[in-house]
């Protein structure tokens, strides 16, 4: 009853104003359809068509070869337009009988951060705001214990006058809370005049390309997955930006494009791979891919090539003659956070 009344009242009040609104809505609807149609048809605006098709493309893994080719062609066109140079997007599949592995001589690293910047030059990361770097180098303290602290723990020991109850003896030693060695509680922002420093060593971390990658487990849209050559890749187009992978990764390897990436055209590396270093968009996760645009063509990664002390080694884990396999055979090797059962293919070693 009351509803009917309201409707009647509304009908009575249908004035010029209301009619105008209805017309407006109608017009808008028509405009929207026209716009959509323009995007669907072969319009001259290359970017418009490619963006539309990109938005509705499948997960890269589920694409047919034909669809992959189309997706790559679309990207090549768009990137070439955007950056004003011929950009190639590679879709090279994994090489046969190759499982990529990496070894880093922790004894040799001097913390110069050249790998960080070689990586940025190669992989088209956003240069600033947001600044994205796939490699982090952590400065760690060598041991720093002192006799002065021997009886300064708590509950108080003999030497401490500030506490009255001295019956318990020292259960937390005075040299506790002094980190030494690989605690990952080191410093990211060290900036001395020269490296290496006397009291420190350096620990680079990047994506470990785990054999059991936690990031892959948590991805709700399965846009990040492990390729047969062991590289964990991301189809950036299918990423929804939930950042679950970032919190799942125990190695802090993943980065997020919080804003539109800032990649100057003259610095853009035009040799890209669909799953690797092609320019990313706002709101997607990214990480190290062992430079798969290079390594799948047989070239060393950018960080291996730049390391001035030769601490970084790379190769095929299935080839007993490869550099990494020889290191696994001969040197003392460890994996970071091996207790998490992630089985990284990134090994640290000492001579």
């Amino acid at each position, binding site marked *: 009853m009351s509803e009917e009344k309201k409707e009647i009242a509304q009908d009575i009040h249908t004035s010029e104003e209301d009619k105008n609104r209805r017309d407006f809505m109608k017009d808008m609807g028509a405009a929207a359809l026209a716009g959509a149609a323009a995007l669907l048809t072969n319009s001259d605006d290359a970017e418009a068509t490619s963006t539309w098709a990109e938005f509705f493309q499948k997960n890269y893994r589920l694409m047919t070869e034909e669809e992959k080719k189309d997706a790559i062609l679309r990207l090549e066109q768009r990137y070439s337009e955007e950056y004003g140079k011929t950009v190639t997007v590679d879709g090279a599949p994994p090489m046969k009988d190759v499982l990529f592995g990496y070894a880093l001589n922790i004894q040799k690293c001097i913390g110069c951060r050249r790998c960080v910047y070689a990586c940025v030059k190669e992989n088209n990361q956003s240069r600033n705001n947001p600044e994205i770097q796939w490699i982090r180098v952590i*400065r760690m303290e060598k041991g720093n214990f002192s006799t002065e602290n021997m009886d300064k723990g708590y509950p108080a020991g003999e030497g401490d006058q500030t506490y009255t109850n001295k019956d318990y003896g020292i259960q937390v030693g005075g040299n506790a809370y002094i980190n030494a060695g690989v605690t990952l509680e080191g410093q990211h922002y060290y900036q001395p005049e020269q490296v290496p420093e006397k009291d420190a060593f350096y620990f680079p971390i990047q994506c470990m390309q785990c054999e059991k990658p936690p990031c892959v487990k948590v991805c709700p849209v399965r846009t990040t997955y492990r390729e047969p050559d062991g590289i964990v890749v991301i189809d950036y187009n299918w990423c929804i930006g939930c950042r679950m992978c970032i919190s799942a990764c125990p190695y802090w390897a993943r980065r997020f494009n919080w804003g539109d990436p800032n990649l100057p055209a003259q610095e853009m590396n035009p040799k890209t791979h669909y799953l690797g270093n092609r320019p990313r968009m706002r709101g997607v996760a990214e990480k190290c891919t062992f430079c798969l645009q290079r390594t799948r063509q047989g070239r060393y990664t950018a960080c291996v090539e730049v390391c001035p002390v030769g601490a970084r080694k790379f190769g095929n884990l299935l080839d007993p003659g490869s550099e990494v396999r020889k290191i696994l055979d001969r040197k003392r090797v460890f994996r970071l956070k091996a207790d998490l059962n992630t089985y990284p293919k990134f090994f640290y070693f000492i001579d």
Partner: protein
Amino acid sequence: MKNANLTKISIGAVGCLLLVGLISYKLGYSQNPEPPKPKEQQNEQPVTDCFESREGYTSVTRVENAVPQYGYPNVKCSQTTGGVLWWGNPYDGTIPMGEMPAINDAARGDYATEEAVVKPREPQLKYFNLSPDQHCAFCHNGKIVPFPKDKKPRLLAAHQDIVENSLQLMHGRGAFWCLDCHSATNRNKLIDHQGNEISFNQPQRLCGKCHGGVYIDWRMGIHGKRIGSWIKGGKKRWWVCTECHNPHTVQINRFNPIKPEPAPALPRGTQNAVPEAAHGNVSHKESFSTPPANPSTGH
């Protein structure tokens, strides 16, 4: 009639939403045709005078469009140090490494079959490249410059222009002197302890005579640096001993300290790295009350 109107309106609304969605999607998702460039990066000119290994050893000049396929320069260099950070062509200016003694041990992985190239040292030597009546071996032929009476290490006042730290040569803690490695009768060559002349392009053949363990590691690819192809048997540029180590001062620093590249940007809203610098240096109690006086060194 009323229902028809409602339907129209709802169609309009759906269309409207679609349009708004598309607009916002395009705005948010697609990038600008010309991404805005930050000012400091616009002003930055690429560094053209670079060095490849240790400073002052192998210099290289940046050449634009050296790899026309991708428009790559031959090298990209650090704004901080001038060190090469990225190679467009890893084999630029290299020559075959030349004959290497066979190891004949398959277990150690003899890379004799590899296509190995090196950056030649000889073109970079100052006196070496002078005409035959001026180059090193002209004076240092064992006659014009007299052969020293004993092998006691001494200060080398001459040639401070070409020998870094020539007044404090440090190799082997006093057990070595110049003519253990440099030929007394032909100063254009190095010489091993059996009297074999060795080219300046192949110092590994000399160094390996004493530093055998490291040499074997280097032959295997575990020690030292290589760029190019990771594939076994592929073409690689090998870095030779003296490209990283200065044989004259190696006793002080096996690898000379270098200036690090800039630190990453601080997290948003952070003013300095003091809290982080406290890690591992002072007790928890101290680190939360008083930050360390000198955060840059962490002490």
